[in-house]
């Protein structure tokens, strides 16, 4: 039940991000200055945390989505759906630890301060 709520909330969140993301990418057609200025915002520490949140949402939606697909199409899917939910959580955790470390390290490497 809560996994369904989580799937729904992350789906909506990613959808609204994508609307904004296509708009910000379209600034490459306005001018390089406009694009660089807006993309510069993605390099602020607050946005770095936001990116970790966004990737967390995508990774959960993706892994849980694969679980839904397995439940629907794999003969044993319904029997193992609980175990698969644990696998989703474990994989999510491992992926997010690795991603967060890498993302933060790259961020601090290139950071020029406030």
């Amino acid at each position: 039940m809560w996994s369904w709520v989580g799937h729904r909330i992350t789906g909506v969140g990613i959808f609204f991000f994508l609307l904004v993301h296509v708009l910000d990418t379209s600034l490459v057609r306005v001018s390089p200055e406009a694009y660089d200025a807006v993309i510069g915002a993605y390099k602020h520490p607050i946005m770095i945390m936001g990116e970790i949140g966004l990737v967390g949402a995508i990774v959960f939606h993706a892994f849980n989505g694969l679980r839904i697909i397995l439940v629907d199409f794999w003969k044993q899917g319904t029997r193992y759906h609980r175990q698969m939910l644990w696998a989703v959580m474990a994989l999510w955790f491992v992926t997010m630890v690795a991603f967060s470390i890498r993302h933060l390290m790259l961020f601090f490497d290139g950071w020029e301060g406030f």
Partner: protein
Amino acid sequence: MTAANSEAVLPAKGIEAPRSGRIDPKYLRSNPSSGSFEMVAWVFMRVSGAALVVLIFVHLFTNLLVGEGIHQIDFAFVAGKWANPVWQFWDLTMLWLAMLHGTNGMRTIINDYAEKDSTRLWLKSILYLATTVIIILGTLVIFTFEPCLVDDAGNLMDYAPAFCENIAN
């Protein structure tokens, strides 16, 4: 199968399939045509979802986890990627699949929560309008993108990516 045992496969005369003819059509749960659309949508959500895992994970990997990560992203970075038709095609597929998958998901959610017919109609109209605008805009951006911008005198701009040197004069 021969005519001999046709009685065995056909429903006995006088017994109708559940919820057929006798029931007033307004009490039927769905009409057959919208039923097949929902079936296609259901399959599409699963097929596009599986493809999006690969498309999005690679997108995040190339843009955030290799090279200088988030700091490398600027005009020249995008120019460098879209100089390669593989990445153009990659982004195009990702754009269309993610938008259609997301829009169909949002349609389901609107159907679940908006109870008034007029509210549902409004929300879905806004949703489909936004989707159309974003898909067209995103597609045009990929294909009309000009990486090697020059100034009035015809010299390459500073932020042009390195490969422009070979083409421009």
